[in-house]
């Protein structure tokens, strides 16, 4: 008999995402993705000064503050046709790259690795065996027996005291956990090391952005970092060299630990290359602009239809008409008034809440489409598009990772394996390595430009009378983010954010086609409906985050999974 499971919340601070699955014979047969909280944050912006919008938008989300700041200033600059000085582009590009590296490392190790790695099993692993395995996999110097043993002792202390801390609530001992105790122990060791390195890279964001978690250095028209090689209070050469040291330190971790761990987990769980593909239309935007107008980029982007990499069509500038015209959002299955598909500039936000209707309205998230079709966004979309565009570093890291997986799995694993739950993790690791190369490249470009005597970081925006429309897009860690602004006489008239998790977590669209989360879950195995680890694996592989952070401390426990038998 079919069972229905409801997992709510899938995420916590990032907002309330509820996933419903119908399960029959150990497989998901139908799925619904529902945003459980109304955002409507765009309404706060109406009537405000467009130069202030980014300060508000970076508070939309609990995790990705920086990205909303970047997309917002780009939207206003686009509306005004305002060019951005080269130094400002490079500084923004460095913040974007460093933030992406931070986000990808934290996502893999601290938000999703424990879907695959059994911490309790790691207690039984032999440190000697784990160390030998680590040294066989990679030249990383911190795979020594002593360090691994220290991590295991620490874990034993936690488990022994009954205080699992962050590890409470995991599905330890679940039949879908397949790694040996030694592999689990090695991965747990890297979990702890990743905590150190994510802090290192976050310092780059803090130095350039003046402060994290909310950067303060952006401005419509550039950045507020004065550059003067001789002054102590500005961005000096000394500070720039300190940043270079931080960047260099994390490179080895990405290449010799993160990439290797993803390859190993991919090889050990190779059956997961068959699950979770879902929507294989991929949308990605170019990023890291290399000129003042936003017509040349370090990282390409575009659209791939039906998983056919050969069908790639590039998006080439911040003014790309194909992108501007292609994006629409629909509300047939969302808790807003009406049943329409509209362009973000033409949208209205009038809530209309109902009960959860399986065939009607069931989510606060709207349903975005690109040229009428749902699209998956995120590192997988980005990596496939960059690969299709012939981007050198992307090809190098993707092919390298696939070779490593093939060697470990003792079977040829090709690029088609990336259309899967585990493939999204692989693509995120590739993107992290690509971003690290880009970060070094942008650092060098900034140094070279300052060396030429160019210290400009800001162009003053001027708001003419009348109406202007702009879009600012950004390839954020979770995928395509776009902010759409309509300005009337220097004030915001309309503002819409189409965020990555809207693309991925959106409900069925106006043609009743399921969104990427929903489609990716169908066919997933579920060994135990009371412990739907496999559902979490696939949803977590997207790096879910609904842009509506709420952050109340709640001392009481509550159940997150309910199971009922459907008639």
């Amino acid at each position, binding site marked *: 008999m079919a069972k229905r499971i409801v997992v709510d919340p899938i995420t916590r601070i990032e907002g309330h995402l509820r996933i419903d699955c119908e399960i029959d014979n150990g497989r998901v047969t139908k799925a619904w993705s529902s945003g459980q909280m109304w955002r409507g944050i765009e309404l*706060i912006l109406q009537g405000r000064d467009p130069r202030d919008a980014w300060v508000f938008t970076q508070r939309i989300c*609990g995790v990705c503050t920086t990205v909303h700041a970047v997309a917002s200033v780009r939207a206003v600059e686009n509306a005004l046709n305002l060019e951005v000085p080269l130094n400002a582009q490079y500084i923004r590009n460095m913040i974007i790259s460093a933030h992406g590296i931070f986000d990808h490392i934290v996502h893999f190790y601290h938000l999703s690795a424990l879907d695959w790695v059994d911490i309790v099993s790691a207690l039984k692993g032999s440190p000697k065996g784990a160390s030998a395995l680590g040294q066989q996999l990679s030249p990383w110097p911190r795979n020594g027996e002593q360090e691994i043993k220290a991590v295991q002792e620490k874990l034993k202390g936690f488990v022994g005291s009954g205080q699992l801390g962050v590890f409470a609530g995991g599905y330890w001992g679940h039949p879908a956990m397949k790694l040996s105790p030694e592999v689990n122990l090695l991965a747990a060791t890297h979990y*702890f090391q990743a905590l150190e390195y994510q802090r290192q890279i976050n310092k780059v964001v803090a130095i350039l952005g003046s402060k*994290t978690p909310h950067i303060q250095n952006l401005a419509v028209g550039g950045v507020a970092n004065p550059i003067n090689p001789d002054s102590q209070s500005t961005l000096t050469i000394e500070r720039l060299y300190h940043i270079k040291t931080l960047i260099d330190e994390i490179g080895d971790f990405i290449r010799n630990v993160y990439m290797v761990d993803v390859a190993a987990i991919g090889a050990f769980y190779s059956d997961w290359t068959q699950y979770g593909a879902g929507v294989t239309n991929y949308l990605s935007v170019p990023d890291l602009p290399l000129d003042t107008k936003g017509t040349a980029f370090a990282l390409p982007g575009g659209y791939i239809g039906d998983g056919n990499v050969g069908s790639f069509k590039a998006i080439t500038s911040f003014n790309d008409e194909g992108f501007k015209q292609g994006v629409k959002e629909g509300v047939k299955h969302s808790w807003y008034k009406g049943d329409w598909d509209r362009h973000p500039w033409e949208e209205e936000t009038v809530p209309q809440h109902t009960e959860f209707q399986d065939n009607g309205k069931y989510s606060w998230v709207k349903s975005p489409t690109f040229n009428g079709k749902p699209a998956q966004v995120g590192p997988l979309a980005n990596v496939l598009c960059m690969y299709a565009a012939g981007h050198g570093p992307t090809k190098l890291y993707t092919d390298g990772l696939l070779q490593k997986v093939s060697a470990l799995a003792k079977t040829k694993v090709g690029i088609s394996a990336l259309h899967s739950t585990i493939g999204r993790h692989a693509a995120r690791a590739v993107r992290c390595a690509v971003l690290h190369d880009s970060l070094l490249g942008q650092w060098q470009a900034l140094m070279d430009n300052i060396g030429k005597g160019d210290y400009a970081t800001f162009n003053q925006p001027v708001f003419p009378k009348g109406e202007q429309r702009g879009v600012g897009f950004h390839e954020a860690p979770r995928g395509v983010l776009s902010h759409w602004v309509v300005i009337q006489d220097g004030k915001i008239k309309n503002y819409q954010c189409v965020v990555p998790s809207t693309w991925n977590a959106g409900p069925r669209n106006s043609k009743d086609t399921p969104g990427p989360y929903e489609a990716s879950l169908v066919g997933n195995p579920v060994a135990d409906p009371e412990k739907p680890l496999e559902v979490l694996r696939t949803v977590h592989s997207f790096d879910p985050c609904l842009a509506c952070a709420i952050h*109340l401390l709640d001392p009481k426990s509550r159940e997150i999974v309910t199971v009922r038998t459907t008639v």
Partner: protein
Amino acid sequence: MLFFVVHCKQAAPIPGTACFIRRRMSDNILVLGVGNVLLADEGAGVRAVEQLQHRYAFPRQVELIDGGTMGLDLLGYLDGKTHLFIVDAICSTQPPGSVVIEKLLDPPAYFRQKISPHQIGLSELLAVAAMQDCLPPSITLFGIVPRDLSTGIEMSPEVNVAVGQVVLAVVKELGLMGVEVGAASR
């Protein structure tokens, strides 16, 4: 208005760690305001920190951070701190606008929530800090019970009052620790 203080003995630090030895030198205090300022009273913790920064001048041993809704990003700020003051909106049976000041013992009840596996929020941040031996030995929660969590940047009147009370309570607590807090220079 309800205002109650729970006095508990201070949680013992883990002896023998490098962090422990460094911390005994002098008090280093982090005042961490958390919350989402776009959701009315949810941002009370951040608003309290803004007011503290605006109205007072603090010595170097006190660091004030607007933590927004972040988790692991804040780990670095806990380094070398002897005291952590968390200012946040809290779920409580107390009426809206109540202030709850509580020393959190180790392991605080706040660590034990059964939430989605391995998502990172404030309680996970503290748990990770504990694993890294960098959890400040003394943690005090300055909680404010919200009324309005709808979208908007204005707080409800009672929570506005409560934020003012928390600001004074933080300054008073610092005073009891012998930390000199002055008026902000204008």
